[in-house]
Every structure is written in structure tokens, then in C-alpha cells.
């Protein structure tokens, strides 16, 4: 992981210059100076503007060159046309970091892009790091410093919020006051011309005040660097990310917004999973999770106990527990005896525990004490509906007391009501116990903690995959030849040779350009065999009569050759046909698929699942990114699929060769990593046998974007 300790002075500056500072309160340059002053920033503030003498009571400097000392941070709030020159001025004056809030760069088109490149060039030339342009700025509540044009300054807290959307920064900041949420820092990334989410995550990891890192992103700038950083940071602090553009339409909107081609959402999900990042699906979930992570401990397991004063919410919560992959705790005898003794006879003393509608705070308190002490309980959820005798404030006190006594077990509450329960809700918020209106959000937040616990429980990944004896030169030779011919798609025989060069058991496939050659080569392969048209442009050969299986002798082969050629040319009269490919007919096995497709952001995404005709029907596929893939990852991705049931031997069938399967997936990952020009690789089907496997149809597309 790249060390970015040099960013410390971005968040803890001693001196901040504001280029474009203004006396006009309507101007951004004025707001920033005011924000710096009112945030309680104790360092020096240098307004810079040749047309001002003084701004907000501070002496104003005509240019950065005239500053008494080099600023740690220079905030640039001048019109876009002047931004590059002013940035250069600040950089020459020794500024360590630039925060460019000015808009009018990449987001506006060609001229803006050129301007942004010039800005980056200035920063590179002087070794200055750049936040933005087109950003709101940054805030650190513990320094404290507010180098932004936001309308307020957040309360101190443990959450770092990093956002690609400036609007989200402003909206969340305002909303945070309504729920009393505090932050360690706010960062608006803007166009990410230099500093990106990865830099900010790494920096937040080293920040003592930050306990949880929250991100809103539309794309990730450097996929692999992000993976390296997230893998390491997520072991120290939870990273929770809301990534928008999950649907096709959303991705289109994101592309339009960022001007970057969004990688596939599967790749993002896979990346987050592989790197220990928790993904939130909604804004509400992002902050629900943040609240839990900021205040709660990570549970030792996934067993949840629920206490409720009414049956319905208890059942709803139980459903969510199951749906989130958590487990309902089964209490030990001691707990059950205790509940039996202390609860009314009509109470349900099993999970979910129903303390009944007439429960006052003391009954809740007793139940809480018993459950939190139970070794079979890892986390607790308390549900409350407003009944006539309900004591929200006292119950909240009981909850807080329990939470204080047992900091090892996370405890969330859902106070399901409005004004009647408000006193209790407010107290819980104030005391840092996550409280929600409905149980679903509470369960999701507990699940986030459990999910993180699982991430932490997995040992740090093993050695990256490597295989001795792979023949790189052979593959290079094939790809070079194909490129020379101007073809993006390899012939089946070429693809099989590529696979074989990496120890993938592709069924030998021979290309023949004429009938006589076909007959001759069939003699080498032996009957029965499969005959396929060799034409890379045809995606679905079977659909156009381009494949004949089960050819048992020369006579059938000769007839088959003519039939294939005639049928394919009838469908595609202008298509280039290279001849035919003949392949040894293999005995049937479990049909699986192994694939790799190069994602724009993260590189190759490896897929495994049920193959053949089931691939599209059942969509039983699991994914991993090839980058940093380990044998353990491969084993896990196989276990995630229904195909794994087949591999283990379903309903008396013989088990498949799992070791061969793991080995083949690993080799595919290494192949595509060694040859990044492979854009797509598809082996479908793979026949898995009790001993070994056979890759029947290998398809490879190369490209160089």
C-alpha cells in the first residue's frame, strides 16, 4: 500500500491560503474564509486576492508569492479560466496541497478536460497533491478545519465520510444535525483529477479519530490500487461503501455524470467482497451501518437475541434475521430458567422473547440482563411499541446501562413509534446506542457488524496463484499471429492451444482447411469426434448448423463436412470461414462453465458456475477478481454455487474432481493475468469427471483497450 502520510497536513494544516478570497459574502471565496475562522481553526489563514486588502478581518495578499510562509493547504476558488495560473502561483509559493473548488473542468467537455490536464501537470511539476477540482472541499472536526464552502460544520464524531458527490456532502452534513450524528471528517472528491477515494481511505485508516470509513462513489479511479488499499485498511477499520449505478440505467447515468465508463456492477460487488468492504445499497443503510460501526463492537458470532413487547414486530425482526443470513440465538438453560422466573407466565421466553405489552422498564431490564449474559447470544435487538404502560425513557436507560456493562456485545434498538417514544429515542442517540424506527434497519446494521466480523475472521489471504511450467512463449506466439491477421477472436483450435499451454485440459482441437485435410486429421484424433465450423465471427455455431457431434467414421465425416459448410454459408454467405475444427468426442460429465472477462476498472473477473444450456437459464455463477486471487478464494467461489452440490456428488452421483477444478480456475486466472490483452475467455462446457476434467469449447477474444 502506498504510504500517504504526506496527506496528514491536508487534514491537519498549520496554514491555509484561500486564493479567490473575497469580502463579498455571496462569493465562495468569502464563505471559505468564514468557514475556516468559525470552525475554530487555530492555524494561520491567508486570504489571497489582488483586489482585496482585507477579508473577514484578515490581511489579504495579492498573490501566493507574497505569503509570509508556504501554506500547507491552498484552497482555490477563482474562476476556471484563472485556476491553472493561480494553482501554479500557489505551488510555486510552496503549497503542499491544493483544494480546487472551482468548477469548469473535465465535467464541462473538451476545453475543461484540457484545463484539468494542465492543472494536474502543474501539481505534478511541483510535487503538490490536488483535491478536486469541482469539489466542495474538506473538513476535519478534530483538527478542527473547515476548508470548504459547506453551510455548516459537523459535530465531532468517529465517521469519515468521503464522497464523489458534493451534493451528498452538503445534504448529509445538514441531515446529521437532525439526528445528532458526528463526523471525524468530510471529504468531497470532485473530479478526482489526482487524489481519489483510495488516497482518502488510506489516509483515514491512519487517522486516530476515525473509527469507520464511509464512501459514496460513482466509479473507482484505479481499481487495482483500490483493491490493494482496501484489503489492508479493511482489516484495521470498517469501510462501508455506497456505489451508485447498479442498474443498467443507473450505470448509464453514472457514465454520463462522471464521463468514465463504469465497470460492471458485478465487478464492484466482487471487489468489495474480496477486499473486505461492506457494501450499502441505500443512503439510509450507509448511515445506519455507520452509526452501528461508530458506536458498537464487532460481535463474536451471528446469533441474535430479540426482546419485544409485541408479537408482530418480533416476527418481522425474526424474518429479517433469517433473510440477512444471521441466526436466532438458542438460549442456554440458565437464561430460560431465569426468564421463566422473572417474566409473566404468558410471556414467550424463547427467542424472540416477548415481554408483553404491559412491560415496564424493569421487565425489559431483567430480560436484557439475562440475555446479554448468555454465552449463546452474540448481539441483541430490543423492540418497543408504544403501549399504555411503556416507559421509553426508563427503558432507554436500562438499555444504556446494559450496553455499558457489556461492551463486547452489540445492542441495537428499534423504538417503533413517534412522539410517544421520542424521549427514549433521543436519549439512546445521545448515548451512542444505535436506535431505529423499524426493526429491518436495526437488523441490517447488526448484520453489517457480523459481516465485518466474518471478514476479520478469515485469515489474511495466502500466496497469489502461480503454476510452474506454463508456456508463456507459446501463448504469446499465438496471440501475436492472430493480431497480425487483424482478428480479435481466436479460432477454437488456437484457443485450445492457449489453454493447453497453461495446463488447462482443453480437448485437442485440430483445424483443417479442406475436406481431405479434415479426413487426414480425423485419423490422428480418432472417432467418434465432433466437427465444428471454424469461423470466429459466428457466436452460436450450433444455431446455424455449424456443429455436428458424434461422427463415428470417415463416411459420416465427409457428409458432415459438406453439411456444415453449406449450412453455415447459407446463413452467412459473406462470412470468412477458416475451415473446420475437429475434436475428440468426450464422455459426458458434469457440465460447468469457467470464464474470464476483463473489467474496465478491476481487470479480469473470473466466473464459475453451471455450464452448458444451464448457464443462461439458472445463472448459477460466482465471481472473483483475478487480481490477488488465492487458492482459498477459488475454493470459496466454487462453494458459493449450486454447481458445488453437483461437484460433491448429487443424489448418489460420483463426486467430481474438485482439485482439478480448483486448479483449472486458478490457471485461467493466471493466464488472463499474464495476458491482459485477453478481453474475454469462456470455457463452456467444462466436463468434470471423477478424475480430471475436459475443457470442451474454449473461446478467447483479445483487445487492447
Amino acid at each position, binding site marked *: 500500500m502506498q504510504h500517504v502520510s504526506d496527506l496528514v497536513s491536508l487534514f491537519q494544516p498549520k496554514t491555509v491560503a484561500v486564493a479567490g478570497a473575497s469580502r463579498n459574502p455571496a462569493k465562495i471565496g468569502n464563505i471559505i474564509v468564514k468557514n475556516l475562522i468559525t470552525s475554530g481553526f487555530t492555524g494561520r489563514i491567508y486570504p489571497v486576492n489582488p483586489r482585496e486588502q482585507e477579508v473577514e478581518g484578515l490581511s489579504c495578499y495579492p498573490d501566493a508569492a507574497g505569503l509570509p510562509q508556504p501554506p500547507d493547504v491552498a484552497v482555490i476558488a477563482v474562476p476556471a479560466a484563472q485556476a491553472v495560473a493561480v494553482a501554479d502561483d500557489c505551488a510555486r509559493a510552496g503549497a503542499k496541497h491544493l483544494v480546487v473548488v472551482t468548477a469548469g473542468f473535465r465535467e464541462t467537455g473538451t476545453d*475543461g*478536460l484540457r484545463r484539468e490536464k494542465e492543472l494536474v501537470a502543474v501539481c505534478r511539476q511541483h510535487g503538490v497533491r490536488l483535491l478536486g477540482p469541482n469539489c466542495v472541499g474538506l473538513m476535519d472536526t478534530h483538527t478542527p478545519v473547515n476548508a470548504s464552502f459547506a453551510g455548516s460544520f459537523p459535530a465531532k464524531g468517529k465517521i469519515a465520510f468521503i464522497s464523489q458527490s458534493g451534493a451528498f456532502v452538503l445534504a448529509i452534513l445538514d441531515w446529521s444535525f437532525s439526528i445528532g450524528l458526528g463526523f471525524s471528517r468530510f471529504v468531497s472528491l470532485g473530479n478526482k483529477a489526482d487524489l481519489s477515494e483510495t488516497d482518502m481511505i488510506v489516509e483515514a485508516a491512519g487517522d486516530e479519530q476515525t473509527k469507520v470509513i464511509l464512501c459514496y462513489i460513482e466509479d473507482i479511479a484505479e481499481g487495482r490500487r483500490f483493491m490493494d488499499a482496501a484489503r489492508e485498511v479493511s482489516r484495521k477499520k470498517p469501510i462501508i461503501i455506497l456505489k451508485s449505478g447498479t442498474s443498467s440505467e443507473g450505470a448509464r447515468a453514472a*457514465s454520463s455524470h*462522471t464521463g468514465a465508463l463504469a465497470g460492471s456492477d458485478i465487478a464492484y460487488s466482487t471487489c468489495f467482497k474480496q477486499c473486505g468492504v461492506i457494501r450499502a445499497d441505500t443512503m439510509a443503510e450507509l448511515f445506519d451501518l455507520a452509526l452501528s460501526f461508530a458506536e458498537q463492537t464487532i460481535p463474536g458470532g451471528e446469533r441474535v437475541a430479540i426482546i419485544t413487547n409485541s408479537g408482530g414486530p418480533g416476527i418481522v425482526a425474526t424474518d429479517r434475521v433469517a433473510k440477512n443470513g444471521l441466526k436466532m440465538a438458542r438460549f442456554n438453560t440458565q437464561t430460560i430458567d431465569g426468564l421463566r422466573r422473572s417474566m409473566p407466565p404468558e410471556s414467550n421466553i424463547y427467542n424472540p422473547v416477548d415481554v408483553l405489552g404491559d412491560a415496564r422498564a424493569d421487565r425489559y431490564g431483567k430480560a436484557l440482563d439475562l440475555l446479554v449474559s448468555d454465552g449463546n447470544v452474540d448481539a441483541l435487538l430490543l423492540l418497543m411499541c408504544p403501549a399504555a404502560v411503556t416507559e421509553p425513557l426508563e427503558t432507554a436507560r436500562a438499555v444504556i446501562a446494559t450496553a455499558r456493562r457489556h461492551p463486547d456485545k452489540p445492542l441495537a434498538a428499534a423504538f417503533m413509534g413517534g412522539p410517544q417514544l421520542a424521549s427514549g429515542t433521543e436519549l439512546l442517540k445521545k448515548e451512542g446506542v444505535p436506535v431505529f424506527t423499524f426493526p429491518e434497519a436495526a437488523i441490517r446494521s447488526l448484520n453489517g457488524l457480523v459481516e465485518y466480523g466474518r471478514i476479520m475472521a478469515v485469515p489474511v489471504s495466502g500466496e497469489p496463484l502461480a503454476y510452474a511450467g506454463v508456456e508463456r512463449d507459446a501463448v504469446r506466439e499465438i496471440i501475436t499471429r492472430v493480431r497480425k491477421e487483424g482478428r*480479435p477472436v481466436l479460432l477454437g483450435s488456437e484457443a485450445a492451444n492457449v489453454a493447453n499451454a497453461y495446463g488447462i485440459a482443453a480437448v485437442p482441437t485440430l483445424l483443417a482447411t479442406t475436406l481431405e485435410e479434415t479426413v487426414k486429421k480425423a485419423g490422428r484424433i480418432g472417432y467418434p469426434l465432433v466437427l465444428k465450423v471454424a469461423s470466429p465471427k459466428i457466436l452460436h455455431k450450433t444455431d446455424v448448423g455449424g456443429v455436428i457431434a458424434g461422427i463415428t467414421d470417415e463416411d459420416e465425416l465427409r457428409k458432415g463436412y459438406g453439411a456444415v459448410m453449406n449450412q453455415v454459408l447459407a446463413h452467412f454467405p459473406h462470412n470468412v470461414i477458416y475451415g473446420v475444427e475437429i475434436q475428440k468426442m468426450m464422455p459426458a460429465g458434469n457440465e460447468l462453465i469457467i470464464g474470464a472477462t476483463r473489467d474496465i476498472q478491476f481487470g479480469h473477473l473470473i466466473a464459475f458456475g453451471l455450464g452448458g444450456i444451464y448457464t443462461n437459464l439458472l445463472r448459477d455463477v460466482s465471481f472473483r477478481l483475478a487480481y490477488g486471487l488465492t487458492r482459498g478464494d477459488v475454493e470459496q467461489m466454487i462453494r458459493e454455487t449450486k454447481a458445488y452440490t453437483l461437484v460433491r456428488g448429487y443424489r448418489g452421483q460420483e463426486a467430481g474432481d474438485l482439485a482439478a477444478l480448483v486448479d483449472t480456475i486458478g490457471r485461467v486466472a493466471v493466464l488472463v493475468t499474464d495476458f491482459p490483452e485477453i*478481453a474475454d475467455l469462456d470455457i463452456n462446457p467444462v466436463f468434470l469427471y471423477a478424475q480430471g476434467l475436459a475443457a470442451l469449447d474454449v473461446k478467447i477474444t483479445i*483487445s487492447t483497450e
Partner: protein
Amino acid sequence: MKNIYLVSSDGSSPKTAVALGLALKLRDGGLKVGFFKPVGPGPGDEEASLFKEVLKLDHSLDTICPCRVGPSYLSEFYAGDGERGRILQAYDEIKRNAEVVIINSPPFPYIAASVGLEAESLVSSFDALTILVTKVENDHSLDQAIYYNYHLRMRNVHVLGNIFDDVSPPLAVKIEETYRPFLEKAGYSLLGVIPARVGITSPTVAEYYEALGGELLAGQNNMGVAVEEMIIGAMTIESALNYLRRSIHKAVITGGDRADLALAALVTGTSVLILTGGLYPDPKVIAQAEERNIPVILVGYDTYTTLDKMNHVIHHIKSSDEQSLAVARLNIEKHCRWQDILTSLR
């Protein structure tokens, strides 16, 4: 020295490049080369202009191509003997200033047969050796070549030999192993097998722009690149990459509101991005295209109309296109029995 009369057996054969290659080779040999096209298509014959410029001919375009027969020529004039006389008169003029003339027939040999001016009816007037040029795609292409050889022989036209043109690499093997024996067994010779080359046959972005009109939003400096395929971008982004990666030198036609597809096209070997429906793309898309120097054309048409117009675009080699001229010359030098052709002419 005899002249060369090129006859095409099908309308799609890029015969111009063959004619150009032969002309350049002859000129390289120190000969004064003329070009004549007795019967041409309707107005706007770029081929006559090309040869006039390349060979620096003084003749008017009407002398180089004296008779023009468009698809509705019979409604306009009755040619008959008078037209033949005009053709021969023009030929005499061309011949006077040249040691050898490359004579090119219309795209199909039967054109103007209604008025007795089909390819074979003229050849006897030109003291030329006939070379039959065929674009080979499949076995039927060979049938066609043999059929025309036979037909010309029946019409007492001596065919020096055949050139198979625009041949894809895999077909080259089949030509050697299968087609050549068939052709020779039928008594006809094969003078050359010219491989397919994108730059020679495929229209350029500029040619599509000329046909489509519209607004050029980016990539002004890269209009000379060839377009080999057209892909309609109407799919989801995840399946789009799969398709887009399988094609290079392509035109991608999509709506201006499909920023995702446009960006995918820009990173997958696209020659031109054509945005339909008059929808301006996001400025960020144009910025990306500018960065990669990929032309972006905005048209007001819908996708169907755009594609229809693009289907009618034909590539014309320009005299300024040094690369195409070099390839045309190389095709004759390397892929044809040039010395045999030269010896026969002498």
C-alpha cells in the same frame, strides 16, 4: 504493346485497385500509361478522376469515360452505333498519348448489353488482353469466374487470365488447393490472388460523413481511417463490451443519450462513433473522443435511416491516398504474376 482490358465478374469486385496497381507498375517501367473507361456508371465517376490525377492525364473526364449508363439510362438515350462511334473516337484520343492503356469495364460485364455495349462486344476494338477479376467468397465465386471465362471464350474473347481479388487469409489456402485446380482443369489460368486489405476496400469515416452529413463533434483529424463493420449500440453495457470487443475498425451507431455505450465504443477499437436522433452527447463523451482522436458524427436521422444511408457508401481511392496507392502497386508486384502479364503485353 497490347493494352489491358479488365472485366469484373461481379459488381462488388474492387477492380479499381487492380487497375491502379497495373497502371502504376507499368508507369514504373517507364511506359506512358493511359486509362480508359468506355462505359461508366452515371454521373460522379470518381474512378475516372482518380486516374486522371494519378496518371496526370490531359484528357477530359468525358474522354476518359465517354459513355455513362446509370440504372435508368434507357429512358434517357438510345445509344446504338452512334454511341459506339463516340466511344471508339475517345479511345483513339486516349491511345494517341499512351504507350499502353488500362481499360476498365463497368462493374458487371453485362451492363449496356441492351444497346450492344456490354464488355465483350467492345474488347475487339481495343487490341487488348482481357483479365477477369473476381472477388472470391465461396465456391459460387469460382462457379462465377469459370462461367464468365467460358462465356468470354464463346464470344471469341481471349482471356489472358484471372485475378482473384479481396481474398480473406483462410480462403487463400482453398484457392490454391481447390479452386486453382478446378480453374486450370477448365483451361483457364490464375494470374494472381490478392489478399483482402481493409484500407483498400472499406469506406473511410470521411466518406460516411459525406453521405450522412450531420455535425462532426470530435476527431476532425482522423477522418481517413477505414470502417470495416457497423455495430448498432442498443444493448446493455455489459453485453455491449462483449460485442464491441469482437470487432475492430468499426462504426458504432447509437443514441446521443447512451453515454455508457459511447464510452465503451471509444475504448474498443472504434473508427467512428455515430450518434443518431440529433441527441447531443454529454460533453464528457466528446472530451473522451477528442482525447482519443476518434471522430464523432451527430446525425438527425434515426438508427434505421442512418444504417440505410451507410450501406450505400462505397470506398473510392483518392489520388492523395499514398498508402492505398502503395498497396495497389504491391498487390500486383507481390500477389500477381506480374512478369507473365508484362511478357504477354509485349
